[in-house]
């Protein structure tokens, strides 16, 4: 005897299993899929900084690959308050995600929290806010590696002897201050006891200011042997000043710069070597991280893995930090292989 009840239950179970399987496969498939119709905005420190242009250029490439509507907006001065008005506007425009390089670790937090309350994902790249202000921070390399690496690079050039100075960007830039902290730690090591950090100057990532700050450093400290400028604007301005000064080749300059800005100074001997990761790749990675967050594939928790196009997969570390990779060192030998 066929019991209609049993039959219907069997059908229901079959349907359930079938739907579960379908659900399972789709949810499995979605793990790598980027949602359709995402809008991601990129807010650099300031828009006319050549480094930021390359970086957000990489982001836009990633957006195109993913079929995401991307745009770059931001202030012309690198200040937190100018970034705030852009963040507010992006909240109003209901972007899916905001990717930014923060001009201040704290001032932006209340506004970023407001964005996150409205389901807008926040990713920082390059320069972080305090962790509660964002889900993921895409870092160039480990901050420790960058900071210590700069000191090691300079020490090699000046034989671990003499007065040195740092030419930074703005006094509140999170990335700069973290690197400087590790530089100072590295300088504590016994092998650097002959080196003395005499001054940290701030060029505010403005060419003119960085140039005059360099001039000021060399006048105030006539025994200066080396300068570290961990910012592309600063290192280029410092190199330009040194290249025309009688101290050219006598005061060592290392830092983080783009090959195109530094080419002539490496070739004329003002600068022996400097380092940088690929800013375009950094922007690219940040775009993927933001899209994956906005698609609901990741939440920014430690240990989660996501794919980032040509860069392959990345795992989220402690405090939501994702690392791009070790920086490239540029010298007279290899600089012509790079064009950015």
């Amino acid at each position: 005897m066929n019991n209609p009840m049993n039959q219907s239950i069997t059908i229901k179970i079959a349907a359930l299993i079938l739907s579960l399987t379908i659900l399972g496969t789709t949810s499995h498939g979605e793990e790598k899929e980027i949602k359709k119709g995402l809008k991601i905005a990129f807010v650099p420190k300031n828009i006319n900084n050549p480094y930021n242009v390359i970086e957000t250029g990489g982001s836009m490439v990633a957006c195109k690959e993913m079929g995401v509507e991307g745009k770059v907006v931001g202030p012309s001065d690198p200040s937190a308050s100018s970034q705030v008005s852009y963040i507010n506007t992006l909240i109003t425009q209901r972007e899916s995600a905001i990717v930014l390089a923060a001009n201040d670790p704290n001032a932006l937090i209340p506004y970023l929290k407001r964005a996150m309350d409205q389901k807008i994902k926040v990713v920082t790249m390059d320069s972080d806010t305090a962790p509660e202000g964002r889900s993921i921070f895409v870092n160039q390399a480990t901050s420790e590696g960058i900071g210590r690496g700069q000191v090691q690079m300079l020490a090699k050039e000046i034989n671990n002897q003499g007065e040195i100075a740092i030419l930074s960007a703005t006094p509140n830039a999170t990335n700069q201050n973290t690197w400087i902290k590790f530089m100072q730690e590295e300088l504590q090591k016994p092998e650097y006891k002959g080196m003395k950090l005499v001054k940290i100057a701030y060029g505010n990532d403005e060419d003119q200011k960085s140039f005059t700050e360099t001039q000021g450093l060399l006048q105030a400290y006539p025994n200066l042997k080396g300068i570290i400028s961990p910012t592309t604007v600063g290192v280029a301005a410092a190199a330009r000043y040194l290249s025309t000064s009688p101290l050219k080749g006598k005061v060592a300059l290392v830092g983080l710069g783009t090959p195109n800005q530094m080419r002539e100074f490496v070739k004329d001997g003002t600068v022996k070597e400097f380092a940088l990761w690929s800013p375009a790749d950094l922007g690219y990675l940040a775009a993927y991280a933001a899209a994956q967050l906005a698609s609901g594939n990741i939440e920014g928790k430690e240990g989660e893995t996501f794919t980032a196009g040509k860069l392959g997969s990345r795992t989220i570390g402690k405090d939501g930090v994702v690392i791009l990779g070790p920086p490239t060192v540029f010298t007279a030998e290899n600089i012509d292989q790079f064009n950015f």
Partner: protein
Amino acid sequence: MSENESSTRRLARRLSWEAILGALLLIAISGGGFINKDFLTAENWANLLANFVEIALMALPLSLIVITNEIDLSVASILGLSSCLLGLLWEFKCPMPAAIVICLFAGALCGALNGFLIVRFRLPSLAVTIGTLALFRGFAFILLGDTAVADFPPEYAAFGLGVIAHTFVPAPFAIFIFLAIVFWVVLHHTTIGRSLYSVGGNQTAAFFSGVNIHRLKMLLFICSGTISALAGIIYTFRFSSSRADNGTGFELSAIAAVFLGGVMVQGGKGTITGVVLSLLLIGIINNVLTLADVSNEILRIVTGSLLILSVLLPNLIASTRERWRFMRRQREIAAPV
């Protein structure tokens, strides 16, 4: 008879400048709503109004100062100094209400220094306040150097960020609305207001009609300093960040708003209504263009052009009127024959 006519003519001209601003404002609002569906949301208006609250505050006393044919370029530096002082006091565990009072008092002192130099030594305010612009900013850097204070108590930060319940009006903007009404009453309905116009129109005449010019100017600069310090406090809470470079360049935005508001560069003319309208207009134009993803450089060009227009247009209107009147008079002379 002729006296009467000239004052009505002046009134007409002033009214028409505000009418022009009002019309521009309507165009900007409807245009903004038309271009962008997010423009007319409460949330956007809260941002829009909050964005220029410090500049708006500083523009109020500045209007009165420009009406008396003086200028105060040090306002944004007082803002920065007050912000640093607040941060420093907070770091040294000073209770917040006391710190706020000290900051306002420091602002008043800065204004008094401006006033003293201008009144006592009869120095031009342009030169004095260019000097104090650098001086006060320098003090700010001495106080905090390159560091920042950011750990302000959440209830104060909430005030800086929040809106008045059930409205889109940011809490700090309510202070501006209140002060704007006070300034409007003082300028347009008290003897002080009339003295301000007479000093700006003709200082010697004002002196002989019994206006205490020195005391008036002193008060104006003290008022400007205090309100700039208030703007500094609001700025600090709005961004939870006290830094020496806070508000750099705001003085130019405030002066631009005052000029666009129809306050004459030569003094003697201008209204609070005009200044408030121009502040709103600049704020709305900036907001609409930002929402439309117009780049920051273009924004600057627009604001700059507005400022030039604001100085140019009233002159053009006046000279056109003059020409029309001349032509009409010629026709009248020609007609009876």
